């Protein structure tokens, strides 16, 4: 099971690939702020499916669920607890 550091590194890489070198803190909005685009949300979802076993077809999807590193981490924790 990966942790918050891996999530942070993954998001940082996504931002860098988008040309965004601004500082990143765990509370920063990623999708609603427009720092990442909707197609980038797919990268986060695939990362969560592959590394945390989250099944979005079962739990549903809302971009607010994955809008910051804190929220993504919380999702991995609640989903893991649910399992």
């Amino acid at each position, binding site marked *: 099971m990966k942790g918050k550091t891996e999530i942070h590194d993954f998001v940082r890489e996504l931002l860098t690939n988008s040309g965004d070198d601004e500082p990143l803190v765990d509370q920063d909005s990623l999708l609603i702020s427009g720092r990442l685009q909707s197609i980038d949300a797919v990268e986060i979802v695939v990362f969560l499916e592959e590394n945390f076993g989250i099944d979005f077809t079962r739990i*549903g999807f809302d971009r607010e669920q994955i809008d910051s590193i804190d929220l993504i981490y919380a999702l991995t924790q609640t989903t893991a607890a649910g399992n």
Partner: protein
Amino acid sequence: MQDNRAQAIIEDLLRKHPGVKDTGVFFDDRDGCVVLVVPDDRYLENISGRAAGSNVLSKWRKTFDLSQLTKEAASAPVGFNTIGWNSSYTRQPIHTDEIREWVENTVRDILQLAPKTVYEIGCGTGMLLMRIAPGSKRYAAADFSPVVLNRLREQLRTVPALAERVEVMERSADNFEGIDDDSFDTVVLNSVAQYFPSAAYLTEVMEGAIRIVKPGGHIYVGDNRSLPLLPAFESSVELFQAADAMRADDLRTRIRRREEREQELVLSAAYFLSLRHRHSKLSRVDIRPLCGRADNEMTRYRFAAILHVGGEIKASSQEEFLNWTECKWTLSEIRSMLMAHGNERIGIKHIQNSRIEKDLAALAILRDAEDELSAAELRQRLEQTPAQGINPQDLIDLESEGLGFSVILSWAACRLDGSYDAYFVPKELRQGITSPAIRWPEPEAREFMRLANAPGQGKMRNELIAQLLTHCSRQLPPELVPREITLVDTLARRGGSNIDS
């Protein structure tokens, strides 16, 4: 040095670079030395280390799948599921009234083509289908997202009368397997092409569509993002979002990044016009700005292409067009002109488009502005810029004023100033023809050189251009080093090796 000799030296040098598949150099009076390069796709991929093509499609498929897994999607009204329609400016959902107007105008335009047998590519949750299928004999609807199609099937179950004439198919846009030649009178792709990975993929789709449409039919490709106006769009979004204190140099950086990050396929109308020369089955192509009163990115920056399949080319002899830029007529002056010439056709070209004139003015100011200019100061300068143009919808609305004219607009000329052309036809001369053939002003030859962007490839293409300029500056005398290099998809050669410009 003579142009021919310089041309040969530059071409030879560029061909030695591994990132160059083909190149063409020519000289013109306006731009001097013009250098075009067809990049080597594998080299580009190696620059970025990213896979292209199918990867892009699978990402978009997953994006649409996810959008329909939300609670809002589950409770969306039948035929009006607007989930995912967010404004690039506010990043918030576009107001449903604006989407409703957009849908209704699109449906009206398609119904004018009198569709009876329809194949819709990228049907989504059925916003068009639910409105067009009731009047058709057969409606086949394809989409690549299984979750989206499940939503559509749920909605269709609530309208049993449609079920027997609608066939839903999960397949990619380029898959025409099992569809006979000339088997539909209308193919619709609306707000779909921007999710294709490349112009080459779009061309495969268009070739399939042309094959399955019977003579006399149409292909409606709606809601395409405009490539000539992409810089104005990108800068308008960044300016809208900029804090008052943001400096012009920061804004320019953000705009450049936005261009590099562009993930969607953005098209020139010239792409569709060029299809006429490659497909004898096409008799004509009309390009229209989108109708609508709403002020949003669709009405400002998107166009529809209507491809006419088969049939005679009945365009009249070259129409005369008055040039709007010479007199800058107001709407009321155009109205008076129509009243005074009740039984004559009147064409006006180069009409300034009020929907985007502020955005274009902002782009022009920003390009030349000193680095320290703030976004607030830029906005102030824009406030002082007088508005002169005419909203295309104002001209369309003249039709309902009882002046006796039909109004037809064209955006085929692909001008960088976003201007459009209008034709006013006395209703008694129209003789029931829904879409009269008009010889519209067309793009200059140079517009046929850049037909589409390369989604997601901005950064690597800029990197290749930088490499090529360095390659030239190291090995050529200074007077021969090109100032700019333009990457293109293909080079059209005429006869020997001359570029067909």
